[in-house]
């Protein structure tokens, strides 16, 4: 009798462990805090595509756009890395920008969590061009389409997702 009781206790304990294990793994505190974007890129969904699609396929879009821009001079903004950074990377209360690698940076907030290394920011700037207000004086000589990056204007605020 005592053996059977012990077995039942053990079973309960194991079941309890199995139940609590995934809960503790995916607890709310451990999920990455992804910084919010500055504005809505499109009216229907927050980003240029539905967020679920962007989470899954952003690397494909960026890779495709990379070759199109580099090799063929196509400079559409929809999947441009510079535009991603411009909208998604913003300054904190003190006006400081998080560096790529820090959990406060939009890209690394998730990439650190998923343990996926990316090389984008070895060459590309991890800060938006609007982070350099001193360059706005140089506006005149900036190429068309780049004024936006250099502008010191406050970006429209709103309930951006």
């Amino acid at each position, binding site marked *: 009798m005592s053996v059977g009781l012990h077995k039942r206790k053990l079973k309960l304990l194991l079941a309890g462990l199995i139940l609590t294990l995934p809960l503790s793994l995916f607890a709310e505190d451990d999920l990455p805090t992804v910084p919010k974007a500055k504005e809505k890129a499109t009216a229907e969904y927050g980003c240029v595509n539905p967020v679920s699609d962007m989470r899954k396929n952003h690397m494909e879009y960026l890779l495709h756009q*990379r070759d199109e821009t580099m090799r063929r*001079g196509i400079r*559409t903004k929809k999947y441009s890395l510079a535009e991603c950074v411009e909208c998604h990377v913003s300054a904190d209360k003190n006006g400081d920008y998080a560096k790529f690698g820090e959990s406060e940076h939009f890209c690394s907030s998730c990439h650190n969590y998923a343990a996926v290394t990316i090389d984008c920011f070895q*060459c590309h*700037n991890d800060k*938006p061009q609007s982070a350099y207000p001193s360059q706005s004086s140089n506006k005149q000589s900036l190429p068309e*389409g780049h004024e936006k*990056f250099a502008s010191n204007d406050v970006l429209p605020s709103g309930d951006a997702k």
Partner: protein
Amino acid sequence: MSHKESSQNTDLSRRKFLGSAAASAGLTIVPGVMLYQVAQAKPDAEAVTSKVRWGMLIDSTKCSTGCNDCVTACNTENGLKGHNRPETDVQWIRKLKVTDKQTGHVMSLPMMCQHCEHPPCVDVCPTGASFKRADGIVLVDRHICIGCRYCMMACPYKARSFEHEVVTDQKTWAPRGKGTVEACTLCVHRVDHDGTPACVEACNKAEHGAMLFGDLNDPDSEISKRLAEYGGKQIRADLGLNTGVRYQGI
């Protein structure tokens, strides 16, 4: 390049020539349309074409010996920073002072990537990172550059640089990083938006006007007109590279 390959290329260029001849015949009927198309900036979604070939004409007689404005403008535009090591610091454009020992005549000229029609850097690149765009601009695709520096050896103009150090605070339009080769891009980000390279702009601002940028394929462009009238020399023309950058007064 094998014989087979070169004959294929010949056929291709002949076909292209016939095509362009037909196109220009069509254009002469409606000359207004062509002018309109040339004046328009390239839409963002459109790829660059071989209808244009970007080039530069440098008049060394107008280039001032003490002036360094083109170099400074290039460094500012592309965010190039040195490490106080002139031997290895990156340099996309540099000023040359050439003295004729016999006569003592001093010549001043800027030297940068010559954007060759047949670039040796592209020939030797083992990964295909070094490439020529359809509009004649020679670039390094640093996404696939492995930093072997073979192109630096192949370039007769010493136009390319290797970045030895970690780069931060890059310009959004000019991404650069450690371990890759880089060179003058003819300010491709400006050119794609119908702009002029930063060096040319700085030269005009300094009222030297020694540099002229334009389309070598358009007979009505200022650069083509000046080249047709006064001619322009290629540096190391003997190599048969057909450079996009031409010089006067050398």
